[in-house]
C-alpha cells in the first residue's frame, strides 16, 4: 500500500514498525504537494527544508525509542496559526510577508509531539468565506473536481487532506469553516467545544466563535491529534481548565442505545435531495448499529445566520483594527499623513469580503444601532443555546447534513454574499452555542462527497468521535480518494 493512501493511524503504526522512515514519508508527501500545487493551490507556503529536518529529528527519536504516537507524522497548518520563523499570511495581502516571532499554542503542542510540518494551508482571507475564493493567494480547487470550490474557510486544509497530500491538517471553525470544507472535500473534521483548544496564536476573526480543530481522513486519526491539541492554556483566558480525555482510548465502545436527534429544521426546504438521501442513509446505518433515532426541533435555529452575521462582523471589525500599517504587515507607499496611512493601508491590504464584514461590524456596534443589532443578536444566541440545551435533554447527539448542497462551482456565489452565507446555515448554530461538532463523509451526490454532521453537548467530543468511528468501521466513504490522487 502506498504511503499516502494510509490513514494517520496506519502511518504511525508503520513508523513504529520501522517499515519506512519519517524522512521517507515526508519526502513522499512533499513530492505529492509539489505535483498538486498547480491544480489545487492548497498550500500558501511549503516548508520542505524544515519538514525534512523535523522528520530526521523524528527518526532519531524513533530510533532512540522516545517516539510518541505522533512522532514523525506529517501535517499542514492552516495559515491562520502563527508559526515561528515561517510566514503566516492568514490568506491576506495584509500579512503577505508577516513572519510571526512565536508559535501558536496548537503549533507548539504538535511540534512537541514530534509532528512534521510540511507547509501552511491556503484559506479564505482572515477565515472569512465559505469557498476559499477570498484568499489573496488565489482560490483553492476541489480535488474531486477542479472546477468546484473546496469550501471554506479551511479549504486548503480540507483539499490537502482529501488529495492525500497530508494525513492531517489543522483548521479553524468560526461558523462552519472546518465542517463545511470537510463535507465538500469528503474528509473528517472536528470543531471542538469552544474553549477546548487554545486560541493563542490563532489569528482572530471572531473571538467568541473561533475554535481550532483538525481535519483528517478518519475519526480515529482526529481523536489522536485532537487529544494532543486540546487542553487549558494559561495564555488564553477563554480556554477551559478541564482534563482532556484520551479520545482514542474511548473509541470502540458500542453505540447501541445512543439517542440520535434528527434535527427537523435541517431536513426542510433548501436541502439538495440527493444529499438529503445520503444523510438519511447514514442515519439508517446508525440505527443498524443500535442507535435510536428521534426527531428534535430547534425553533430558533433559523435565526442563526442573521445573528451570526451581526456578532462575527462586530468582533472582526475590532479584531482587525490592529492592521494599521504601523507595526507589522502591509503598509501603503508614501503615506501623506496618518489618515492617509490608515485609509490606503487598509484599503489596499484587505480584500472585498473582509472590508464588507468590517463595515458591517462597525455599523452594528455604532451608537444608536448597538441595541438593535449587537445586543439583539446576543439574545438570539442565548435562545439558540437554550434550544440546544433542551434538545440535549432528550438526545445524546444531533445529526443532520453539514451543508445544503455538495461543492459548487467557482464564482457561482461570489456575486451575492447572502447566497454564500447561507451555505453555513447548518453549521453556524454549533458555533453560536459553543458546541462540539463534526463532519464525516457519508456517500456521494453524483460524483461529489456529502457530509454528515454530528453535534454534541459541551465537551462531548469523545462521544462524537466514538459515534463517527463506529460508523466508519462499517462504511468506507472516508477511504474514498478523489480520482487522480489515489
Amino acid at each position, binding site marked *: 500500500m502506498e504511503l499516502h493512501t494510509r490513514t494517520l493511524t496506519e502511518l504511525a503504526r508503520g513508523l513504529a514498525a520501522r517499515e519506512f522512515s519519517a524522512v521517507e514519508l515526508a519526502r513522499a508527501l512533499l513530492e505529492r504537494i509539489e505535483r498538486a500545487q498547480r491544480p489545487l493551490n492548497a498550500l500558501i507556503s511549503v516548508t520542505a527544508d524544515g519538514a525534512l529536518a523535523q522528520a530526521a529529528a523524528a527518526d532519531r527519536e524513533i530510533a532512540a525509542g522516545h517516539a510518541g504516537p505522533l512522532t514523525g507524522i506529517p501535517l499542514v497548518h492552516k495559515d491562520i496559526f502563527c508559526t515561528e520563523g515561517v510566514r503566516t499570511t492568514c490568506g491576506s495581502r495584509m500579512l503577505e510577508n508577516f513572519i510571526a516571532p512565536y508559535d501558536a499554542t496548537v503549533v507548539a503542542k504538535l511540534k512537541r509531539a514530534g509532528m512534521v510540518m510540511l507547509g501552511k494551508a491556503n484559506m479564505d482571507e482572515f477565515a472569512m468565506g465559505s469557498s476559499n475564493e477570498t484568499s489573496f493567494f488565489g482560490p483553492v480547487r476541489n480535488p474531486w473536481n477542479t472546477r468546484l470550490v473546496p469550501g471554506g474557510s479551511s479549504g486548503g486544509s480540507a483539499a490537502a487532506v482529501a488529495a492525500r497530500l497530508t494525513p492531517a491538517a489543522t483548521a479553524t471553525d468560526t461558523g462552519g469553516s472546518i465542517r463545511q470544507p470537510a463535507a465538500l472535500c469528503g474528509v473528517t473534521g472536528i470543531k471542538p467545544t469552544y474553549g477546548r483548544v487554545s486560541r*493563542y496564536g490563532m489569528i482572530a476573526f471572531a473571538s467568541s466563535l473561533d475554535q481550532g480543530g483538525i481535519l483528517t481522513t478518519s475519526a480515529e486519526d482526529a481523536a489522536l491529534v485532537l487529544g494532543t491539541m486540546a487542553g487549558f492554556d494559561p495564555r488564553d483566558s477563554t480556554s477551559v481548565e478541564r482534563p482532556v480525555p484520551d479520545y482514542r482510548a474511548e473509541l470502540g465502545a458500542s453505540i447501541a442505545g445512543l439517542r440520535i436527534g434528527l434535527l427537523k429544521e435541517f431536513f426542510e426546504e433548501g436541502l439538495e435531495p440527493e444529499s438529503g438521501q445520503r444523510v438519511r442513509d447514514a442515519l439508517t446505518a446508525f440505527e443498524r448499529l443500535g442507535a435510536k433515532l428521534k426527531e428534535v426541533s430547534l425553533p430558533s435555529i433559523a435565526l442563526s445566520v442573521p445573528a451570526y452575521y451581526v456578532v462575527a462582523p462586530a468582533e472582526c471589525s475590532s479584531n482587525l483594527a490592529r492592521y494599521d500599517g504601523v507595526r507589522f504587515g502591509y503598509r501603503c507607499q508614501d503615506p501623506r499623513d496618518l489618515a492617509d496611512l490608515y485609509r490606503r493601508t487598509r484599503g489596499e491590504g484587505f480584500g472585498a469580503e473582509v472590508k464588507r464584514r468590517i463595515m458591517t461590524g462597525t455599523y452594528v456596534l455604532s451608537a444608536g444601532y448597538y441595541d438593535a443589532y449587537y445586543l439583539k443578536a446576543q439574545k438570539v444566541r442565548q435562545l439558540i443555546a437554550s434550544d440546544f440545551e433542551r434538545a440535549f435533554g432528550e438526545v445524546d447527539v444531533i445529526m443532520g447534513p453539514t451543508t445544503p448542497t455538495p461543492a459548487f462551482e467557482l464564482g457561482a456565489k461570489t456575486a451575492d454574499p447572502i447566497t454564500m452565507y447561507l451555505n453555513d446555515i447548518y453549521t453556524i448554530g454549533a458555533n453560536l452555542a459553543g458546541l462540539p461538532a463534526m463532519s464525516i463523509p457519508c456517500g456521494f451526490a453524483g460524483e461529489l462527497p456529502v457530509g454528515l454532521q454530528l453535534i454534541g453537548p459541551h465537551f462531548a467530543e469523545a462521544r462524537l468521535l466514538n459515534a463517527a468511528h463506529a460508523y466508519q468501521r462499517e462504511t468506507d466513504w472516508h477511504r474514498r480518494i478523489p480520482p487522480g490522487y489515489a
Partner: protein
Amino acid sequence: MESAWETVIGLEIHAQLATKSKIFSGSATAYGAPPNTQADLVDLGYPGVLPVLNGAAVGMAVKFGLAIGAEVAAHSVFARKNYFYPDLPKGYQISQYELPIVARGALTIVLDDGTRKRIGITRAHLEEDAGKSLHEELARLTGIDLNRAGTPLLEIVSEPDLRSAKEAVAYMKKVHTLVRYLEICDGNMQEGSFRCDANVSVRRSGAEKLGTRAEIKNLNSFRFVEKAINYEIARQIELIESGGKVIQETRLYDPDAGETRSMRTKEEANDYRYFPDPDLLPLALGSSTIEDVRRTLPELPDEKAARFSRQYGLSEYDAGVLTASRELAAYYEEVAREVPGEPKLAANWVMGELAAALNRDGLEIEASRLGAAQLAGLLKRIADTTISGKIAKEVFEAMWTSGRDADAIIEEKGLKQITDSSAIERVIEEVMAKNPGQLADYRSGKDKLFGFFVGQVMKATQGKANPAQVNELLKRKLSA
C-alpha cells in the same frame, strides 16, 4: 460678579496601579526605560496574541473600592473601546464600560472654613494605558513608544459634586493621599502616574439644569488643576455673558500660556463602539476574595487623623497635616512614642523645623536626613531642660548637616543649659558690676532695662543659661 454663577466640576482621575507587570501581559511597568524595551507581543498587539488579566491589578482596584465604601462588583466586564491611533496598538483599549469593578463610593473633603463635604464617586474601573506618541524628538516623523501601553490604570470618576477649583484640588489631594496609603499607586504626578481630566461647566446661581461642559484633558499637577479650572470658569462665564454659547468639547491646558485650548468638539469625537471583550471572561469576585482584601486594608487617612486628635490631643488641622502620608504619620508616631508626654512638642517639631528642612532640600519624609529616633533624641533634651528651645534649633541644624545625634552635638559644643543657680548668680553679679550706670538707671525706675540685663547674662553664658531661672534671679538681684 462670580456669585451670580455656580461652577460644576467632576473629575476623572487616572491612577496608575503599582503592579510589577502590565495589566494584560508580563512586561515590566517600570518608568523611564528606553523606548519599546518594555513591550512584548501582547503590548504590540501582534496577530494571534491574547490578553490575560493581572490579578494584582484586580486586588488593588478592590482595595480602593473598599476604602471609599463603594460596592465591589461580584461580576464586572471588560469592554473594548475602539478607536484608531498609532500609540494604541490593537486599535482598541481594553477598559470597563457598563459593568465596572467599583461603583457608588464617596470621600469627604474639608473646605477652607472647616466644613466637611461628601464627594460622590460614581465608579472606578480598570483599564490599560496607551503608549506615547513622540512628536518632538524626530523631525517630520512621529515616534511611538509602547513601554506605557498596557500599564494598568484605575480610572476614578467623581460625581459632579465639586463647586470650585479649590474643592477639586482638595478632592484630588484626598484621592492622592488615599491611593498612596493603600500602596496601589506611587502618586508620582511628574511621571504621569496620577493625573486627571476635569469636566467643567457653569450655570446661573439657582439654575437646575447643568451648563454645557468642557473636558480639560491630562492635568498632571495640583497647581495645573486649579489654574486650568479657574481659567475655564472665567472663559465660560465671559463667553456666556458676551452672548456666546459654551460648546461641548475637549480642551487642553497649556501651562506656559496659562490657558485652555480646544482640542476637538463633540462632532469630531469618536464613536467608541464599546462592546464586551470576547477575549476575557467576565470578572467574577467571590465575597471571600473581597473579604481577604478587606483584611489587608491599612488604617485609612481619616481614621488615622481622628485617632491622632484623640490619642495625642492634636488639633484637627495638625492631625490632618501629620496624616497626609503614611510615612509622615509613622514618623510622627515614632517621635511621639520616644518622647512620652510631649505629643504636642513632637507635632510642632515635625511640622515646623523638620518640614522646613525637608522642604528646603526638596526631600520627602522617607528620605529625611534625620530619623525619627534622632529627632526624638533632640526633643528629649528640651523636655528634660538640658537645652532650651532656642538652642535646640541650633542643635537641629547641626544634626541636619552632620547626621549626628543631638547628645553628641550638645556635648561637643558645650550647649548644655546652665541650671545651677549659684553659677547663674555669679554671672549676674559680674554683669551688674560691669554696668553700674544701667543698674542705677534701672533702680531709679527705668524698668525697660530689665531686658538689657537678660541679654547680657545670656550673652555671657553663650545662651546656655536657663531663661526662666535667669529671669527669676535677675529680678531678685536687681531689686535688692
